[in-house]
């Protein structure tokens, strides 16, 4: 983990209220793995007061570049969306444990909702590069909010889109799309998911009933981002009846779906 000032190389609105931000920071670019995140200090003047966590969506280690995808959400992302090329921004990272890729065999199904797509783009690329078969399921509420994922993915990744209003791809929730496929031909070796809590909850039920191993990247409010404050607790099973609070930032953000207490 390092603390460093990254230079803004490019910023672009790639979908409604969704921004692509390309940063230059050699160490981060070299060391980051899919599922890890950076903790960004939006301004130097303690407003907003806390940093903001964003998943690393991809790296170009040879060029010393990395990128994130962020959605306009509140005051912090609004300020971030106005940053200009050449400006610098303080980043802590890479943080957290990424997805565990060792045990993955067979088809890897990646399920992303909204901005949750970000870490999966990095994951898809990494899995592809190690010759794994990858199918991506990606949902948003409307077509305009879908970021153009093909643009960010290597060839050969199967992409399945869903929108709640049917303006693009499957009409309905992306979990419904996935579930219907699972009824038929789809046989994932493992599922990797990131998205809104509700999506993750439905997916957890599906995975449990179909006995598909799954890794979830979780979100929780963070203060330190590095494990010191115990702020980002999630309840995790620790044996039959016992649970403990683990830190999303340090023990996660990726957890086994069956560990999480929803």
């Amino acid at each position, binding site marked *: 983990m390092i603390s460093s000032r990254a230079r803004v190389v490019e910023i672009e609105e790639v979908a409604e209220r969704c921004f692509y931000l390309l940063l230059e920071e050699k160490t981060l670019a070299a060391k980051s793995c899919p599922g890890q995140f950076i903790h960004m200090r939006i301004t130097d003047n*303690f407003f907003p*007061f806390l*940093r903001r966590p964003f998943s690393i969506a991809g790296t170009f280690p040879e060029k010393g570049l990395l990128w994130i995808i962020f959605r306009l959400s509140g005051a912090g992302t609004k300020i971030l969306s106005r940053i200009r090329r050449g400006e610098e921004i303080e980043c802590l990272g890479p943080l957290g444990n990424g997805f565990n890729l060792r045990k993955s065999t067979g088809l890897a199904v990646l399920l992303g909702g909204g901005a949750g797509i970000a870490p999966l783009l990095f994951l898809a690329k990494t899995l592809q590069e190690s010759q794994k078969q990858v199918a991506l399921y990606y949902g948003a509420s409307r077509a305009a909010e879908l970021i153009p994922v093909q643009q960010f993915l290597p060839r050969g990744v199967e992409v399945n889109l869903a929108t709640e209003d049917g303006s693009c791809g499957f009409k309905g929730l992306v979990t419904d799309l996935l579930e219907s496929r699972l009824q038929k031909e789809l046989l994932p070796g493992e599922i990797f998911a990131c998205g809104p809590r509700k999506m993750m909850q439905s997916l957890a039920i599906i995975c449990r009933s179909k006995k598909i191993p799954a890794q979830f990247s979780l979100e929780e*409010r963070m*203060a330190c981002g590095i*494990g010191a404050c*115990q702020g*980002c*607790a*999630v309840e995790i099973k620790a044996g039959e009846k016992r649970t403990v609070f683990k830190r999303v930032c340090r023990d996660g953000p990726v957890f086994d779906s069956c560990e999480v207490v929803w």
Partner: protein
Amino acid sequence: MTNLKVKLGPLELKTPFMAASGTFGFGEEYASLVDLQDFGAVVVKGLTLKPRRGNPPPRIVETPAGMLNAIGLQNPGLEVFLSRELPRLQKSKVKVIVNIAGETEEEYVTLARELSQAGDGLAALELNVSCPNVKKGGILFGTSPSVLASLVEKVRPVCSLPLIVKLTPNVTDITETARAAESSGADILSLVNTFRGMVIDIASKRPFLGNKTGGLSGPAIRPLAVRMVYDVYASVKIPLIGMGGICTLEDSLQFFMAGASAVAVGSAIFSDPLTIPRLTAELRSYLEKEGFRSPEEIVGTAHTSGNGEEL
């Protein structure tokens, strides 16, 4: 070069900047980012006799110029602290202050006794009688002068380390609890802990935090904390450690001038882990520029007018 050493009664620190309890864990996580040698002291996360699970999430929410936290003193308990955290901390050469919290007077006494015997790795104990996020103990000991005095009187005899009492700001008159702590044996007072607050989640129409309320920290509370340090300085004779929203050198100077002999940086560390080394360097150049030989020369100066008169 200007010497940044400060003496708070029995406690000597090489700089007047410390990490506030709960914002720096047990020092481990930040150790790779900052050199702890630069710190006057590190106050570790509130420690209890037995391990504590902590409060249900969410535990944190940002607020205007601040944040609420309701960690609920999640910590591994005394035993694990002594066997795992303390030996590691003792290797780094930083002064360690242990913040302790109990649900009963006996728990405080036991903690104080055991930690006093833990060897020379500890610089002081800080009695946390002001945690707003636990149901039993914590803040309850800190709001009544007589309850506080009784606690400090019991802890004092078993505590061979310098004894700091951390005051809660959630009181009508903080000088009363300050005087109660002083007269019952505290060596040093630290102030302030967090202010009890709440954020309501509009969508669910429910308090946002799992614990419903949390403690407010950050720049938002700074003017309140400075005022309290100013008032307490005029009411007691023992030295003070000031804190509450310190981010910049100017912020810390306000606390020194109000009467703090040392200051702690809390939640600003989350935003900038390098706050303490930065403040240390900046304080050095400030003192040099202004012709002071020690930070102690500016402590309490806001109480005297330009010509040295008491106000």
